[in-house]
């Protein structure tokens, strides 16, 4: 059994018991425990079930590489799935449930998959679910949805109860990893005066040295003290280096309150760091060995076993068998023995056995078997015994040894993830059987120089003394690369370990047959076995990236931290090629999963995206505005009165406007000032129309195209004076069109004297619309002349309108007598209020965007984004009148001369009138005779705008129809998705006041 030892446990405080809940059971641990160590102390070795076969799984590791021990944690607004027990610090009240089983962890129906394992081979998903098609929907998908997936997804209606934040930081040197190498590198770099940040994902400094021995007594404590005393050093624990990106950008993920939810403040903080130089001192991760039954609860990494003993005073078992291909695992045997527990055997796959540590173990009376292997582990929910065999053979069992835990070590792999994220290359180290960073090919910064270096075990320097020297050199090198004068630190004098070399063991025993290979796990979390990778190779998946996706090796939440090297070694072996030829899969950030909420940071709710408000926003809000987002703006779609529906409100607003007087907040329209001696010439190039001939005080509707010829924006251009124009753009188009103008001015016609200013937010604008619009403006008084002749249609004037500094444009988007009045934004609300008061006697009615849309459609005016979609040229819309024939050039003109654009075969704009007066559904297509190559009905047009017109009391629409203008009077069919066929007659697009008499009064 696993249990709490009477003594030991550097991290725990035995005077401070902590109570927590596991699957509803009350259990006890100590402050300083992780969830994993506390569960082990309670003899809860089995911690979950595997993804595919639902096999019982126990904890394997003691750190962030753990693949098995994942839990649903918390409740309600604090619920989170897939939380790793090995990195979850215990706190009072912690509540977790195990995952991936039904109905219970002990008894699970899904384990049937295990017995059907030979029907679930690699590529199962690709092979089985193809045919027959209906089986997917009715059999496979429901089955997979029920049984697959790790943790439970959080309830979509529940909001995360915690807060999160982003934090920006700049440093000359950032060190990731606070083991002895990281601490030494940080100190050496900091001695140069460089600004240094060092982060450690664990709550404690010192890393593995705290278990396996410091360079000298008190080394870590001394170094931490020195660093804390330096003003140029920032230190953070519980912070992981999540990813390295271009030019020294680095993400740090700080877990502030995961261990102490009772504290105030944000739960996670995402550090967005710009580093001059980055040192990754991220250590190494131990590799499992691939023998049959290596996933049975109780089989653990050797390093993890001694971590639990030394750090938490927890024994994983009473009798711990050790299996290894290197000297390091002997430390575990020695630690187990010293804790008063049994080590029945050390199985060393090397024929020649180990060095100094092996002698020490033998000296303690531990039996060591060289050249041997584990043929098989027996047990179900817990290890019962190991069966031994010769490593060189095929697995003939020599003897069975009873034990309740197995400590395995296949060697150590440097954590090269951060080095690799931004392009650092690796080299295969034959002697140590590992990939390590290739110093000569680092990730490069903006100057073409390397900006990441590795230190200590992460750099392949597994020996303590060598690692420390390596870290000192990295600290010095980084400080110098960041522009500081640096010198090395004085290091403790350490003798090199007297260890015998590792011998790579990728399969145990070497000649294991199919039966054993089918029970030898590579990827615990995704249930990938040695036999799966071999099958993939035989089926032609020779690229490691393909094998990964085919078998799902390394695709689980641990991203293959334990499995990748073993998997690609098996793949290489099967393909008969060397490991470096196979290569690794791509390392991608984040190093371990980070919370989605930390990525969102403060951007949630109200401040998710700032809303742009017009000066009249509050008035709309107080008067029943039914909002519509337009770009970042909010505009009233309509104003609801009493119990009416939006549809009724829109009809009321239109009738009132056409009958008397309506008000529209048009402040969101883009307003670009184009000024300078060459402004007219410039606008002639930007618009299809001639703008240079526009007289001061006059307005002209203009079309803007891309160089591709397609319509991109429209609006009214006003010539304010000889060298200034005011260009109105669509709402939301102002920034885009401003950028477009600047690009042409700065990259093509930079010798033209033109200056552009985006004045959108400097002006509030009100559309005063309807037969009584002139009367209401005259009521306000002032010195502007807005009489019929004083300000004719498409005229502009400025002056005092009442108290206001107004610019008045007589333009008509609704087809009525109407004006747009612009005043400085600060006067906008006052103007609106004044018009409201003055309009009372005319029954003034505010109207929203939908009424505006319907009224323009009644007049046959196009709308960018409705009638256009980036494939429509002005000629398609019958806007020839707005395209100057006198101009030699404008943006888009050459493109419109292309054969396809000139073709008479294009879909062109027409009006559509349903035969029965109904409204054609949005987006409906007009069908034609016959079918296309895919067996779909041919089409001959589509609806672009369709509304109920209260003015005409019938459905009206505009659409693009094949040769439409030549087919007036023809009736075509628009099938709706409800099965109804909408029959519509092709008519002129101007439904209301075709002679334009209303706007000319």
């Amino acid at each position, binding site marked *: 059994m696993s249990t709490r030892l009477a003594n030991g446990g550097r991290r725990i405080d035995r005077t401070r018991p902590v109570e927590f809940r596991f699957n509803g059971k009350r259990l006890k641990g100590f402050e300083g425990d992780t969830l994993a160590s506390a569960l082990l102390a309670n003899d809860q070795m089995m911690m979950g079930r595997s993804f595919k076969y639902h096999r019982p799984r126990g904890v394997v590791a003691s750190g962030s590489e753990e693949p098995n021990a994942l839990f649903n944690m918390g409740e309600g607004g604090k619920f989170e799935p897939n939380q790793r027990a090995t990195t979850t610090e215990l706190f009072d009240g912690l509540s977790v449930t195990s995952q991936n089983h039904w109905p219970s962890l002990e008894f699970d129906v899904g384990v049937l998959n295990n017995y059907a394992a030979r029907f679930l081979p690699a590529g199962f998903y690709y092979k089985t679910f193809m045919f027959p098609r209906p089986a997917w929907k009715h059999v496979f998908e429901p089955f997979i949805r029920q049984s697959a997936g790790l943790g439970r997804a959080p309830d979509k209606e529940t909001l995360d109860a915690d807060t999160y934040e982003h934090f920006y930081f700049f440093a000359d040197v950032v060190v990731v990893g606070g083991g002895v190498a990281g601490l030494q590198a940080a100190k050496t770099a900091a001695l140069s005066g460089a600004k240094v940040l060092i982060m450690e994902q664990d709550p404690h400094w010192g890393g593995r040295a705290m278990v396996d021995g410091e360079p000298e007594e008190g080394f870590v404590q001394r170094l931490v003290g020195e660093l804390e005393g330096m003003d140029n050093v920032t230190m953070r624990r519980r912070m992981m280096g999540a990813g390295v990106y271009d030019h020294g950008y680095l993400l740090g993920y700080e877990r502030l309150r995961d261990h102490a939810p009772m504290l105030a403040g944000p739960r996670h903080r995402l550090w967005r760091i710009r580093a001059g130089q980055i040192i990754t001192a991220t250590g190494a991760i131990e590799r499992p060995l691939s023998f049959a039954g290596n996933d049975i609860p109780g089989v653990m990494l050797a390093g993890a076993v001694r971590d639990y003993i030394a750090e938490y005073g927890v024994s994983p078992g009473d009798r711990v068998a050790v299996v290894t291909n290197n000297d390091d695992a002997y430390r575990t045997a020695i630690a187990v023995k010293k804790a008063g527990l049994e080590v029945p055997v050390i199985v060393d796959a090397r024929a020649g056995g180990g060095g100094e540590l092996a002698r020490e173990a033998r000296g303690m009376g531990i039996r060591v078997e060289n050249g041997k292997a584990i043929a098989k582990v027996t047990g179900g929910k817990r290890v019962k015994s190991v069966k031994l065999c010769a490593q060189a053979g095929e697995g003939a069992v020599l003897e069975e040894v009873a034990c309740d835990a197995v400590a395995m070590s296949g060697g150590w792999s440097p954590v090269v993830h951060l080095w690799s994220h931004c*392009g650092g290359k690796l080299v295969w180290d034959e002697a140590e059987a590992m990939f390590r960073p290739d110093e000569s090919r680092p990730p*490069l910064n903006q100057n073409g120089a390397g900006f990441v270096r590795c230190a200590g075990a992460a750099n392949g320097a597994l020996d303590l003394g060598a690692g420390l020297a390596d870290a000192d050199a990295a600290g010095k090198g980084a400080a110098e690369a960041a522009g500081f004068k640096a010198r090395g630190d004085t290091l403790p004098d350490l003798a090199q370990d007297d260890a015998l070399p590792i011998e790579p063991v990728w399969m145990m025993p070497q000649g294991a047959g199919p039966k054993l290979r089918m029970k030898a796990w590579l990827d615990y979390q995704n249930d990938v076995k040695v036999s799966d990778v071999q099958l993939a190779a035989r089926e032609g998946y020779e690229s490691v990236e393909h094998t990964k996706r085919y078998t799902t090796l390394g695709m689980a939440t641990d991203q293959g931290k334990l499995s990748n090297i073993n998997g690609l070694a098996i793949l290489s072996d099967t393909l008969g090629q060397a490991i470096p030829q196979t290569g690794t899969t791509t390392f991608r950030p984040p190093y371990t999963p980070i919370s989605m909420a930390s990525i969102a940071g403060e951007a949630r709710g109200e401040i998710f995206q700032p809303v742009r408000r017009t000066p009249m926003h509050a008035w709309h809000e107080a008067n029943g505005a039914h909002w519509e987002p337009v770009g970042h703006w909010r505009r009233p779609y309509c104003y609801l009165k009493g119990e009416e529906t939006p549809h009724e409100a829109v009809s009321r607003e239109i009738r009132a406007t056409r009958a008397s007087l309506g008000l529209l907040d048009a402040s969101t329209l883009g307003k670009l000032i184009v000024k300078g001696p060459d402004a007219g010439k410039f606008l002639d190039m930007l618009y299809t129309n001639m703008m240079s001939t526009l007289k001061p005080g006059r307005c002209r509707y203009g079309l803007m195209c891309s160089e591709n010829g397609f319509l991109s924006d429209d609006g009214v251009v006003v010539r304010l004076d000889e060298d200034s124009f005011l260009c109105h753009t669509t709402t939301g188009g102002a920034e885009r069109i401003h950028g477009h103008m600047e690009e042409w001015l*700065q*990259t093509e016609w930079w010798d033209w004297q033109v200056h552009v200013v985006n004045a959108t937010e400097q002006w509030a604008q009100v559309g005063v619309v309807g037969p009584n619009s002139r009367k209401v403006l005259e009521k306000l008084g002032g010195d502007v002349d807005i009489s019929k002749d004083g300000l004719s249609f498409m005229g502009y004037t400025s002056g005092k309108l009442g108290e206001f500094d107004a610019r008045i444009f007589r333009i008509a988007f609704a087809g009525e007598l109407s004006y747009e009045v612009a005043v400085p934004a600060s006067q906008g609300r006052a103007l609106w209020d004044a018009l409201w008061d003055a309009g009372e006697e005319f029954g003034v009615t505010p109207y929203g965007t939908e009424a505006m849309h319907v009224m323009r459609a009644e007049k046959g005016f196009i709308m960018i984004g409705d009638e256009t979609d980036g494939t429509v040229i002005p000629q398609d819309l019958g806007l020839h009148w707005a395209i100057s024939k006198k101009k030699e050039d404008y943006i888009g003109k*050459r493109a419109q001369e292309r054969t396809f654009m000139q073709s008479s075969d294009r879909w062109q704009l027409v009006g559509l009138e349903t035969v029965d007066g109904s409204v054609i559904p949005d987006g409906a297509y007009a069908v034609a005779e016959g079918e296309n190559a895919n067996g779909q009905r041919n089409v001959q047009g589509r609806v672009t705008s369709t509304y109920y017109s209260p003015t005409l009391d019938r459905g009206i629409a505009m659409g693009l129809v094949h040769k439409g203008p030549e087919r007036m009077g023809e009736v075509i069919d628009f099938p709706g998705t409800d099965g109804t066929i909408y029959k519509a007659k092709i008519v002129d697009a101007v439904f209301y006041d075709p002679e334009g008499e209303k706007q000319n009064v």
Partner: protein
Amino acid sequence: MLILECPCCGVTGEETEFHGGGEAHLKRFGPGSADTDFENYLFMRENPKGVHLERWRHVNGCGKWFHVARCTVTLEIFGSYSAQTLEPPQEIKDAISAKRPGWSWRDFS
């Protein structure tokens, strides 16, 4: 996330301050030009593995357009320069040549 320097206002900023605008030094072909010239101008773009000259706009800053010489493989920046030029200035060409001897991009080298 790249770090770029705007030659118009002198600010060195994060990529989020800027907006990429594609290939630099385009020669415009307007009405009357041959179909192939127009096609090349409108659609055909350099897509080099290595040295690239491109337009950027300091969109969340001074608003100005400028050009950047950049390596698309290593993301190294050789320099940024005014957009008001028909080809990269000599010092930019020299900076590229110093690090990528024998480079060429269209007719520039």
